[in-house]
């Protein structure tokens, strides 16, 4: 009797061990990746937060712990709030620009034309996405130069009488930056929406036509509702990326003229590598992290709801 109980217990134990080993296999496969990603993300993340709690790190041998003092100073600094406002304007403006241009071009390259021409246009229109930020910045600086082709064209058309300093005039610099950012970022939206458009059943458009819907009717009542999940996900992703965008702004205007195009990412860089105030830079970086994390949570929730 006793030996039978022990045998049963052994069997149960074996079963549990087998279950654990079976269930742990996927985690073991994930382990190397989790370890690498964890160490690459968590260590810098921890260091940035830690740095933000000291008076000045890296350039100072014995930095002192100051708690939330840097946060208090940054939050009472008008330059920080100006940069925050600029970041919001730049991010929202860019995403709206990306969505409008990306959607329009996705509709155009989805039309039923000669397949070779369609492929050519799709390839050409995706080009801005391929260029690095440096190439984009230098090209647009040349285009927008007071003696550049844009001023020349506007002058010949009689729209302006003297050259405009697109990147150096405070009233034009942010608009110019938005134009450049829109040009650089629309291909991502275009490609994403194009795949979304191709998955919309043709029957829906046929049914809408029978109901008497025209181009705009079909667009509002068929295309937009069908693309809604894609639009929401892609717009959030674009929002997260654009919010932290640094190279394009730094290489195009350097946050100027004055500080009219200073965004939070350029402010972080300025604190770190212009002023060598790494703790203040970390403090601004943490603020970017918090806002980006909030966007990311929205994005993940949206993705989860699709499953």
């Amino acid at each position, binding site marked *: 009797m006793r030996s039978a109980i022990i045998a049963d217990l052994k069997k149960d134990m074996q079963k549990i061990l087998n279950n654990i080993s079976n269930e742990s296999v996927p985690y073991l496969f994930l382990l190397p990746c989790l370890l690498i990603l964890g160490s690459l993300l968590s260590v810098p993340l921890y260091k940035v937060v830690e740095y933000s709690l000291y008076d000045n790190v890296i350039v100072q041998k014995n930095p002192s712990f100051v708690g939330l003092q840097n946060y208090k100073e940054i939050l009472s600094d008008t330059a920080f709030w100006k940069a925050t406002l600029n970041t919001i304007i730049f991010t929202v403006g860019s995403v709206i620009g990306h969505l409008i241009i990306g959607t329009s071009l996705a509709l155009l390259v989805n039309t039923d034309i000669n397949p070779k021409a369609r492929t050519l246009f799709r390839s050409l229109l995706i080009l801005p996405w391929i260029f690095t930020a440096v190439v984009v910045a230098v090209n647009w600086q040349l285009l927008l130069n007071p003696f550049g082709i844009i001023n020349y064209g506007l002058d010949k058309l009689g729209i302006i009488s003297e050259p405009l*300093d697109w990147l150096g005039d405070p009233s034009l610099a942010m608009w110019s930056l938005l134009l450049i950012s829109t040009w650089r970022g629309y291909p991502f939206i275009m490609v994403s929406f194009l795949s979304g458009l191709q998955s919309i059943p043709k029957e829906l458009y046929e049914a809408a036509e029978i109901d008497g819907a025209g181009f705009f009717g079909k667009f509002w009542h068929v295309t937009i509702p069908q693309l809604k999940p894609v639009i929401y996900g892609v717009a959030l992703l674009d929002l997260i990326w654009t919010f932290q965008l640094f190279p394009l702004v730094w290489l195009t205007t350097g946050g100027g003229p004055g500080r009219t195009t200073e965004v939070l990412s350029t402010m972080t860089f300025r604190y770190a590598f212009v002023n060598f105030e790494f703790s203040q830079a970390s403090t601004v970086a943490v603020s970017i992290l918090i806002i980006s994390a909030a966007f990311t949570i929205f994005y993940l929730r949206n993705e989860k709801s699709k499953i």
Partner: protein
Amino acid sequence: MFFKKIFTLIFAFSFAWTINASAKTEIEWLQWFAAENTRDFYEGLVDEFEAANPNISVKLVTQPFGKVRESIVTDSAVGVGSDVLGLNMPWTTGFLKSDILEPLDKYMSKGSNSFKTENLVQAPIGKINGKTWMVPLNAFPFVMHVNMDLVKKAGFSKPPSSWSELKEQAVAISNLGDGISGIGMPLSSQPPSNGPILTFLPLLYSNGGRIMNGTSPNFDNAKVVETLNFINDLKKSGAMAPGFASRTGGVDLEEFIAGRSGFLISPGVHASAVATRNPDLNYDLVRVPTNGVNAYRVHGWELGIASKSKHKEEAWKFIDFLLSKEVNAKVAKASRALPGNLDSLDLVSGGATPVMKTQMNILSGDEPVEELRQAPSAVASWSIMTEEMQSMLRGDQSAKEAATKVQSRWLDLIS
């Protein structure tokens, strides 16, 4: 038996190699000089040094100018920095705050040095906190580059030598139209935002003005305001190229090389870029037009030793080699600048071009001025000047207000 012999041979070779390798000290030289139009030149210098000093090897680390400053600071923070550092005088204050530099006084007083301290260009070796922190590899005065074709086309026979002539000729050149401008003012906010130190300071020094009083900012003085007013006047009279707030130093140079600017105030070393990139340009180089004072902003490439270097003696040996008469003359010729060791001047002047001779005359006859070693945090202070000058040229504030604001913001920077 055969295998035993082979094994012994391999062992002996490995042992000898290990001994040799361990006896050799490697020093690292971080600089931007090798990136400036001198292909393989610095590699050749390193080979020459290593041949004369078989126990020292030099690792040449070349980065763009804008990156070197960042690298020195971050490398020093994590303790992996180079031994010999290529330096720029305006970086000094920031580096001293972070204890990055080793004082050079004890090395400079060595009797075995290949040069005499009194023969070095003096500006970089001037003491700060009672110590010398860097030595000059080469030197060049700030000058005015002149497009003679445009000057003649505008109806003048020779380049301007005074402020009033500069304004008159620059306006006349701008009036030629067709995208031609008299003079550019590179006041872009883009890093390193160094427009004011390229153009404003040389004009200020030729007006007898200064921005520092020892180690204290002294920006709101009458000479500064007068110079700012002159720049404002250039803008208002139409002498200045449009787009000052988006014009970088690089664009300013390119516009001159392309023949679209009459005048360019910049380091004399840019003569090599003009000569190599547009040899057809009818080009001349003159001292910056004066408002009564023959003074020039002196600039150059400097050398220092990292305070965290474990091989300071070897690092100094290499610096001493670079400052020796023959080697320093070679460096000067390669960079089309003047030597840091003025004892090499006779070697450089042999076969010197007229442009180089003009620079030599400026260097020997006029008053050298260097204030940026003591100015508050280099790039940050330039940005402040840039922003306030942009605002002044837009008409948002007067020269006096701009000077007062720079002074106040500089004081904040050092507090």
